[in-house]
């Protein structure tokens, strides 16, 4: 087994120490930072994501893998910065104004982080303008909006409209989620994407990044 396979295995087993040491070894073997990231860390997480979707493993297994991925990332980060390798993408996340539900949104954040995205979580009850300001500041290309109440869903449209108003809808895409949402309501409000749960959010966002 080569070192990248070992690293991928460590991720899949959710072993953070092994993930960190395997990353270190890969660096010592002079592998490129991007190669370690894509063929070791992310490769492991991708397998975990698939196995979770196939219902072979449980959520704690995914989260343990995500933690191991972070352990590897911490070791790799200086090299990534040096090599100018970007994270898989930057995403602004938050629950819209008037809504305090954050359990689902937090899960989406954990899974996205696990898949290698950089997440800026603005929390709950977030004003429309703050999402956009944060996206501009962090140069994020995606904003993820969560709403669990019928009464707060309209706040999503406000954000989408505001983005248009500011002439940013070409650079910044919106993905929405939460129990009252559907693909149909997402289309109606003019969101770019919708995902029904955290696992499909990762897949959808990966596709949005292409």
């Amino acid at each position, binding site marked *: 087994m080569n070192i990248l396979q070992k690293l991928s295995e460590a991720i899949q087993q959710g072993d953070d120490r092994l993930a960190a040491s395997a990353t270190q070894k890969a660096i010592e073997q002079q592998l490129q930072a991007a190669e370690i990231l894509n063929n070791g860390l992310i490769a492991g997480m991708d397998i975990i994501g698939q196995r979770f979707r196939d*219902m072979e493993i*449980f*959520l*704690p297994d995914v989260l343990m893998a995500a933690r191991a991925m972070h352990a590897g990332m911490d070791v790799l980060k200086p090299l990534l910065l040096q090599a100018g390798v970007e994270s898989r993408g930057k995403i602004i996340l938050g629950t819209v104004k*008037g809504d*305090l539900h954050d*359990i689902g949104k937090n*899960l989406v954040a954990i899974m996205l982080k696990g898949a290698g995205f950089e997440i800026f979580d603005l929390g709950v009850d977030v004003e429309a303008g703050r999402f956009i300001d944060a996206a501009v500041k962090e140069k994020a290309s995606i904003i993820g909006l969560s709403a669990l*109440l*019928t*009464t*707060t*869903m*309209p706040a999503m449209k406000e954000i989408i409209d505001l983005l248009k108003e500011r002439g940013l809808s070409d650079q910044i895409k919106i993905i929405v989620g939460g*129990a*009252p949402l559907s693909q149909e309501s997402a289309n109606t409000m003019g969101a770019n994407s919708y995902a029904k*749960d*955290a*696992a499909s959010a990762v897949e959808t966002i990966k596709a949005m990044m292409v």
Partner: protein
Amino acid sequence: MKPTLHFLSDSLAQQIIDEAFHTLCTLGIEIQDNTLLSLLAERGATVKKESSRVIFTEDIINNALKDVPSTFCLYDIHGHQTHDFSHANVHFTPGSSALHITDKEGIKRKPMTADYIQYVKLMTRMDHIASQSTAFVPDDVNEQIADSYRLYLSLMFGSKPVVTGTFSEKSFDIMKSMQIVIRGSEVALAEKPLTIFTCCPNTPFKWTDETITVLTACAKASIPIELVSVPMTGFISPVTLAGTLILHTVENLSGLILSQIVNPGTPVLYGGCASVYDMRHSTMSMGAVESMMLACGSAQIGQTLGLPTQAYIALSDSAHLDAQAGMETGMGAVMAATAGISNISGPGIHDFLNSFSLEKLILDNESCAMALRAAKGIEPKEDFPAIPLFEELLKETHLLISDHTRRHFKKEILFPGPVIDRSNSLTRTASPPTLMERAHSEVRRHLHAYEAPALAEDKRQELMRLMKAEAARHGQEHLPNFSDTE
């Protein structure tokens, strides 16, 4: 003997309560309200201003438990008593605040005013469901009035008390004013409560300013509150049932303290909506057997504390009116009723609390009836000595026209409505009506037989005026016309 379902030994229930006391007095709770923080500090609590965290004392908890009423009653729009929460009396109320309605084709869609009015009309005829709830949210009005509008329709078309809540604290005043219209004055409303307001802590261990505003306003007006902690096993509470119950007890006790500090004697239901968090599907499963055990377990804690109780149970995760829906709802109903939960919230709702079905409400009304029957237990009625009746049986060869039979059969045996097949004839029909068809024809029959409760015209007019003004305040000039919706 009334059968009693217990999931906790007395000593475990006490241990959970002791641990909750200890947690409140050590770890404390975050309370986002400066007035309450000051009131608590005055009573000896340690208040950490920068984190809004309050460390309670045992005295504060015990005083709240002394002040809270051990029971209370609810009254319908005419002022007649419908609920007495003493003596482990059990009542059902529909599940609340669904996002969708599931229609008779099994299709999920946005509910409209017409759906809500049909629901309220049906509820006047569901004999085994004692109160209405604001069951779902009509989509044809401005979302800012979503909460007050539901209460308005419930009061215009129904008579039973209403279990409700606000989506935003801004709706509280109008919802209180509507109740005052019905009762005549704030004092009369306090004497004869018409609604219960749901107030949820934000698990884990937090009361947000918005919820506190509503809780405080309810307490000041002596409007009953149901405290509903919403833990999820293994996610935002311990994966073990006992551990989740400790967290649940901590949160509910903290809410109880807040309500009694604002106004000692505020009526409170010790409620709960603890659920299993499904680690495979990332859903909160209310139909899981452990969620039902948590509902009964949390009620047992409430009973141990001497309080009337509430829980979300007798509902289903299933997306359809199918065998799973019947099984989960029926099983929960029997468990909840035999556990003596005072107000059981569930009937009609399914799909992880997200959808409501009128046809399911019809079926669930029968589950409630059966559960209420089971909870009464087996009591002797002219059964001793038995020999005279046996002699009659031997002599007549049957007891069908015996005095004993005729005296007791209607009370002893429950006769379900036509949605329950007891006829043994469906199997002989070429294409027997499905459960959905039977339930739907019952929906039609009840709607046809609906009689409007006699709410005085001046009260109707005043309710309409209030609602129109509230709608206008939020930019909606016209409300859906009732005649278009019936």
